């Protein structure tokens, strides 16, 4: 997808180019709002504000090839502003310890649709920092680490190691979850 071409077409008022950008990046923006635990209404607000700010900046985006990063940064600011207004800033990032036990291998049957619900509940039990990072990494289409770093204000280099530890933790939780365990 040629993002700079879409940006300049949208800046000329091309609705279909704009809609292509919306389709490409809405998943990322939504995941960022959810990573900060915004409610449905606040998440919708944060995403809409991000798009409106892009409209305001369309002909002044300095590096259109970095649009995803610009959107990620803007979405983070919108989320933090909403959280600040409601007096709930995100919890300080806690250290993520390695998972206590080596995670047992998950077999491919986890892909079975009905288990996703149990998996989702287990995911919600993760410590905040893990939940936040993984929620953004789960965006569709998958974001680049550079964008994830901007969305969460983390060093790019820390994402890979933290991702590994957090997935390890989640696997350990899955292993201890009967519903997910007994059918695997």
């Amino acid at each position: 997808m040629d993002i700079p071409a879409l940006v300049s077409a949208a800046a000329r008022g091309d609705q279909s180019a704009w809609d292509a950008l919306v389709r490409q990046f809405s998943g990322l923006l939504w995941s960022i709002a959810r990573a900060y635990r915004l409610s449905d209404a606040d998440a919708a607000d944060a995403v809409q504000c991000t798009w409106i700010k892009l409209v305001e900046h369309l002909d002044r985006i300095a590096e259109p090839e970095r649009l995803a990063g610009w959107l990620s940064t803007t979405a983070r600011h919108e989320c933090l502003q909403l959280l600040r207004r409601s007096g709930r800033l995100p919890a300080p990032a806690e250290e993520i310890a390695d998972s206590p036990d080596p995670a047992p291998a998950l077999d491919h049957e986890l892909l079975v649709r009905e288990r996703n619900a149990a998996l989702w509940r287990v995911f919600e039990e993760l410590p905040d920092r893990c939940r936040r990072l993984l929620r953004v990494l789960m965006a569709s289409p998958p974001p680049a680490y550079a964008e994830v770093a901007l969305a969460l204000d983390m060093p790019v280099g820390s994402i890979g190691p933290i991702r590994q530890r957090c997935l390890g933790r989640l696997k350990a939780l899955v292993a201890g979850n009967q519903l997910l365990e007994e059918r695997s």
Partner: protein
Amino acid sequence: MNDDDFLDVLRAAADEFDPVPAGVLRDASAALALRTLDAELAELVESEALVRGNGPLTLAFESEHVTISLEIDGSRLRGFVSGAEGEAVVETPRSRRAVPISDGWFTAADVPAGLVRVRVAASDGTPVVTRWVRS
């Protein structure tokens, strides 16, 4: 299952249990219509949230032709503009309302929470719009 595969499973779960709502996509698509190619942009030069979290927010904007000060207190917006007269249009992503400017002052009640901007016509006719701010 390696980490990449596991993340793919999680992505499928997210798509199923926390998808982007259709309304969010519709609003995003509609946002392009909020472009203001015709107007001079009044930039935010000062922003101050007064005391309490819910206290009034004061903002100052400047463009080549006008200066606009806004005080937003809950759903009430009060403004002072110099360099423009007639009416001020208070815009949100879903609404716009014209209110009269009297000796530079204008007031709008019941402004919905969220983004808001104000559009005026400078004395020489130049349309001017402020940046969006969160009320």
